[in-house]
């Protein structure tokens, strides 16, 4: 049994790396853009940028110049600095919220897919309840009442992501739990905890991580939508969504104020979608070498 399992995994691994070599320029430019946005967001304070919140009422909607590389917004704040600091918010919320969904949803999904029975019915049922609510409405209501803060925003968006991660983890566990290596481990007398952590988790982790990247893309969009409506991050913190919302007021005189952050958001969301979807296709057992 053990040797069979080894050879099987080796083949899958070889197949994945063989296909990974043919990923092409689109995939790598997406990775490049993600790395660039990450670097800029992390290094925001060291970069020679003006303050993103300093207002200069004489320089409102100033055009592109040597002082303001991307001009200034409606309150005379430097557009480039706001863009860079906005990337921070998008990435902090976009990465932290799916982590909540990944941990709780992943654990619930694996447990319900492995133990089945009443527990599974209960978990799937509660997720159905959560899925019944329009996510944006739920997020709007909760942030409107709990107060606008980055923490509240992250937690509510994270909770909203739990059902999706649960479904992915459960589906993967359901198929894997019937495979030979799990049956072998059971026959050898392994405990449930050992089977879940040592046998199932490494195999479920791959599709979950690919889905995590798609989750990041969705979260960035929802955070943007909430901030766009003025119910996301509290002002004067800049976020791509709130910048687009503010830029919307001056579409006729300075359309770039909406379109620059819009482009940044589109490219980032597209990159996460592209990389996530490619990894999902690579790790999808249905298309694999099985």
């Amino acid at each position, binding site marked *: 049994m053990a040797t069979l399992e080894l050879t099987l995994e080796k083949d899958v691994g070889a197949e994945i790396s063989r296909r990974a070599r043919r990923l092409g320029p689109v995939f790598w430019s997406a990775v490049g853009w993600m790395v660039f946005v990450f670097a800029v967001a992390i290094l925001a304070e060291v970069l020679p940028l003006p303050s993103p919140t300093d207002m200069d009422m004489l320089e409102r909607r100033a055009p592109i110049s040597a002082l303001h590389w991307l001009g200034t917004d409606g309150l005379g704040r430097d557009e480039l600095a706001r863009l860079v600091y906005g990337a921070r918010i998008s990435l902090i919320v976009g990465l932290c919220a799916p982590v909540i969904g990944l941990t709780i949803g992943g654990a619930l999904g694996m447990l319900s897919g492995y133990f089945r029975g009443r527990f599974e019915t209960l978990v799937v049922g509660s997720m159905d309840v959560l899925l019944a609510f329009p996510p944006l409405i739920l997020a709007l*209501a909760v942030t409107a009442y709990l107060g606008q803060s980055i923490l509240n925003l992250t937690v509510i968006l994270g909770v909203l992501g739990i059902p999706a991660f649960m479904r992915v983890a459960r589906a993967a566990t359901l198929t894997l739990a019937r495979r030979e290596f799990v049956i072998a481990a059971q026959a050898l007398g392994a405990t449930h905890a050992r089977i879940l952590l040592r046998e199932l988790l490494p195999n479920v982790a791959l599709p979950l991580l690919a889905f995590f990247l798609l989750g990041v893309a969705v979260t960035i969009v929802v955070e943007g939508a909430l901030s766009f*409506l003025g119910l996301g991050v509290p002002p004067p913190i800049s976020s791509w969504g709130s910048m687009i919302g503010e830029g919307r007021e001056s579409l006729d005189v300075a359309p770039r104020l909406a379109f620059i952050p819009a482009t940044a958001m589109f490219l980032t969301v597209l990159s996460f979608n592209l990389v996530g979807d490619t990894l999902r296709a690579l790790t999808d057992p249905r298309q694999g070498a099985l």
Partner: protein
Amino acid sequence: MLGFIARRLFYLVPVLLAVSLLTFLIASLLPGDLAYVILGDQATPEKVEALRQDLGLDQPIWWRYLGWLGHVLEGDFGRSFRTGQTVLEAVAERLPVSFELMLFAELMGLVIGVPIAIICAARSGGIFDRVMTGSAFAMLSVPTFLSAILLIYLFAVQLRWLPATGYVPFTEDPVGNLRFFVLPALTLALAEWPGIMRVLRSDMIATLQEDYIALAKAKGLKPSRILLVHALKPSSLTLVTITGINIGRLLGGTVIVETIFALPGIGRLLVGAIYTRDLIILQGVVLLVAGSFVMMNFIVDMLYAVLDPRIRHGHA
């Protein structure tokens, strides 16, 4: 089949109960006492206490929940303390707007998505197919508020063809009404067509490999006839269900679009209720939207079961 429907209906009861409980908890556990909200800043403690008793806020929460649920089951969702409108009146007033928006959006999505899917499937792997599959993927990364702004900029600010915001009832000015709906519906359709196109394209590619398509080709039928008559119908089953799910999803997804384009629909009603802390309207409308979403899923499940007998016998 009847047994299957009964089982699913039985499952629906706890889900709907949990939905109502969660709605009630969200609306009542959130900070901000309803009595203070109604009376405003100048409220004296005595007045607040009196109103709390009047509204039944001094009673335990589970008792209030049961009371609310009882009223809801009788069809009484409550009355807004701001406008005096009942929840059902407010929803009935706004629903036609949201419904018109969803209908247009879904229609436009189909008009864009179906022809593209057919052409892509006819020559899958060709240049058109690859370009359109790529564009559909890119479109999935465009948030609705981005496409809304882009469309407003193009058609309202630059070309001045269409109004950016506003609404007139269809009965007053049919042409004006339609003009106000073009941009919002197109915004939603831009988000809808990639899904429609992907589903129909992959189903159609599968259908085109069937034997009877080869027979039709061998008989010398025109390619357009094979595509539109022989292949389209059997490939559109998933599309029908997708359209059903989309309408349920759009119900909650119109919030952004209605807010941007100032359309007085359900989404605006909800956002307005959140801004003005109108708890009665908020919990009533959220319950209605969530409840109809659950029902929509139930209907889609039933449709699947009708189409695929394996599901109703529990083999899938």
